[in-house]
C-alpha cells in the first residue's frame, strides 16, 4: 500500500469512526417537546427581559394583592414577620457589621423579583398569580424599596427590564483563586509551631443556642 493510500484509508477510518460517534450520540430516546409544552413550563426570566410574559400592573394594584396574599409573612411594609424574610429597607447597610439584605438593598436585578414570585410565591400556593398580578406585586415590592416611586407607574414586559436596581453593580464573579491564592501551595508548620498554648477565646456553650434551647440569633 502506498503511503498516500495508507493515509487515505486512515482518514476514511477516522471519518467512519466520527460518523458512528455522531450516530451513537443520537439514541433516538425521548420525544420532541412541542412549542405549547415549552411555553407552559418555561417560567424563567432573565435580566434582559427574556421570558417575561405580556402583561402589566401598578404598585397601587399590587398593594391590594400583597396585603391579602403576602403580608401575613412579609409584613404590611415588607418588613418581615418573625423569621420570614424582610423585603424592603436596609439601603446602605451592606458594609455594616450587621447588613440588612433586601430586594432594595441587595438584589441586582428587578427581573429576579418577577421570576421568583412567579415560581415560588405565595409560599404554598406557587404559580397561582396571573401575569398581570405578578407585574403588580413586583411593582409594589419595588415601590416599598423606593425604586418605583409613582404608584401608577405601569410595570410591563417592556418597562421591567429597564428598572435599575441600587446594588446592580455590587457583584463580581468568584475570584477565590486570585484573591485567596495564599491558601494554595503552602507548607504549613508541623512541629513546635507556637511558643504559647492557644487560649480559648470563644465557646459555643456560652452562646447557648444549640437545639434544646428556645432562642437563637437570626441567620440567613
Amino acid at each position, binding site marked *: 500500500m502506498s503511503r498516500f493510500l495508507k493515509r487515505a484509508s486512515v482518514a476514511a477510518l477516522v471519518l467512519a469512526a466520527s460518523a458512528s460517534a455522531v450516530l451513537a450520540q443520537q439514541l433516538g430516546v425521548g420525544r420532541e417537546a412541542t412549542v405549547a409544552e415549552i411555553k407552559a413550563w418555561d417560567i424563567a426570566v432573565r435580566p434582559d427581559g427574556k421570558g417575561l410574559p405580556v402583561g402589566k400592573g401598578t404598585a397601587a394594584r399590587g398593594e391590594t394583592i400583597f396585603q391579602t396574599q403576602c403580608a401575613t409573612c412579609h409584613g404590611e411594609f415588607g418588613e418581615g414577620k418573625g423569621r420570614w424574610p424582610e423585603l424592603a429597607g436596609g439601603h446602605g447597610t451592606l458594609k455594616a457589621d450587621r447588613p440588612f439584605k433586601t430586594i432594595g438593598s441587595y438584589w441586582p436585578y428587578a427581573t429576579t423579583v418577577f421570576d421568583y414570585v412567579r415560581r415560588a410565591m405565595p409560599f404554598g400556593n406557587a404559580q397561582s398569580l396571573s401575569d398581570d398580578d405578578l407585574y403588580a406585586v413586583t411593582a409594589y415590592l419595588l415601590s416599598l424599596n423606593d425604586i418605583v416611586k409613582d404608584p401608577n407607574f405601569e410595570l410591563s414586559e417592556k418597562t421591567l427590564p429597564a428598572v435599575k436596581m441600587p446594588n446592580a453593580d455590587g457583584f463580581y464573579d468568584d*475570584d477565590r483563586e486570585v484573591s485567596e491564592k495564599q491558601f494554595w501551595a503552602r507548607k504549613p508548620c508541623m512541629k513546635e509551631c507556637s511558643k504559647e498554648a492557644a487560649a480559648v477565646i470563644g465557646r459555643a456553650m456560652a452562646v447557648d443556642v444549640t437545639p434544646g434551647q428556645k432562642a437563637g440569633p437570626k441567620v440567613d
Partner: protein
Amino acid sequence: MTKSPSEPGSDVTTTSRRKFMTSTLAGGMAMTGVGRASAQQKPGSAAVANPKNLPPNVPDWSKVLGDGVAAHPYGKPSKFEKHVVRRDVEWLTASRESSVNFTPLHELDGIITPNGLCFERHHGGAAEIKPLDYRLMIHGLVNKPLIFTLDDLKRFPRTNRIHFLECAANSGMEWRGAQLNGCQFTHGMVHNVMYTAVPLKALLEEAGVKPNGKWLLAEGADAAGMTRSIPLDKALNDCLIAFKMNGEALRTEQGYPVRLVVPGWEGNMWVKWLRRIEVGDQPWHTHEETSKYTSLMSDGRARRFSFIMDAKSVVTNPSPEAPLLAKGRNVLSGLAWSGRGKVTRVDVTMDGGRNWQEARIDGLVLDKSLTRFYVDFDWQGQELVIQSRAHDETGYVQPTKNELRKVRGVNNIYHNNGIQTWLVRSNGETENVEIS
C-alpha cells in the same frame, strides 16, 4: 484502685464512665440539650449493662428465636440506634418546608452516608412525584427540544460515581465564632453517596446544543421551582442525571425520581425533582444566585457564582456529641473533602496547633468525595485542643477561620471551610470553641 475501662471485666460499669455521666447530668445547665440527649440515649455509653446478659451468663437472644424473614420487608436500623437521626435547628428558619436538617456525622464511619441520614434542604417542601408522571424537558438553544420519561432516562448508558454534596451554608452559623455545640450542626450539611446516573452530556448531545449555548438553567418541580444557572462546560464535564443513590431509588427528600449531580460544587445547584433544563447564552441571575448563595464581603460588594466547595475537614469523633469515654487507647476519626479533586493529606493537632501529625487516611480516596481519616492515640485525661486540616490535589490547604475572615469578613454566610476546633476536657466532655 479505679479500674480503667480498657481493663478486662470493666465493661459493666466503670468509675470514670460513671463519673463522666454523673457530671454530664448534674451539669445539666451547662451541658447542651443535644449533648444530654445523645449521652442518655447512646447505648454504648449506658452506665449499667445487664449482668444477666454478660459472660459467664447466656443472654435470652441466644435462646429464643428472633424475627423471621418477613418481619421487616424494608429493613431499618436496630432499635438501639434510634438516636442516630437527622436533627434540625428550630430557631433557624420560619418554616420547616423551607429549612434544613443535619446529618449525624459523629454517628457514622467510612465514607458513605446512609440514604435516610442524608441531610435535607428544601425551599418548598419535598415534592412527591409519581414516577409515571415524571417528565424532564430540555429546550432553549438546542437543535431539537426533548421530553424524557423516567424510563427514557434509563435507556442512556449509565455510570456510578461517589460524590459529596455540601450545602454552601454548611458551617455558616460559625462565621462570627463558635455557636452551635455539635458536629452535626456545625458540619452536618454534607453527605456522600454513590449515584447511578446518566451523564448530562448524553442528554445534551441527544438534543444537540447550538454553538451559542453557554449556560444551562436547571429547574426543580418542587413548589419553590428551584433554579440555578450552570456553565455549559461544567455540565458537559461531569454533571450527572441521577436516579439511584447507594443502589436504590433516590429518596423523596433527595429529589425522587431524578436529581442533578454537580460534583464538587455547592449543593444548592444539585437541583432535586429536576423537571427542566434550558440552554441559554448567559446566566439567568435567579433568586438562588443573587439574593442567596452570593458571598457578601466586608467592602459591601458580593462574590457571585462561587460554585466550588473549597477543601475542608472536621474531626467527627471526639466532638461535642461524641465525648471521649475512656482513658488509654482511643480512635480519633474525621472526614475531609474538596470540590477541586482528591484529598491528598489531612493533618491533625491535639494541642491547639503547636504540633501536628499526619492522619491515617483509610478506605477509598476519590475525586470530590468524602475521605475518612483516623489518628489512633492514647489519652490520659489531659485537656486536648483538636483540629484537622485538609490538603487537596491542587495544593490547597484548608485555612483557619481567622485566615478566612481576614479575606472575607464575617458576613459571607456561605463557604465557611475554616478549621474547626474542639476542646476535650479532662472528663472527656467536648466543646466547640475558638482559640487565639
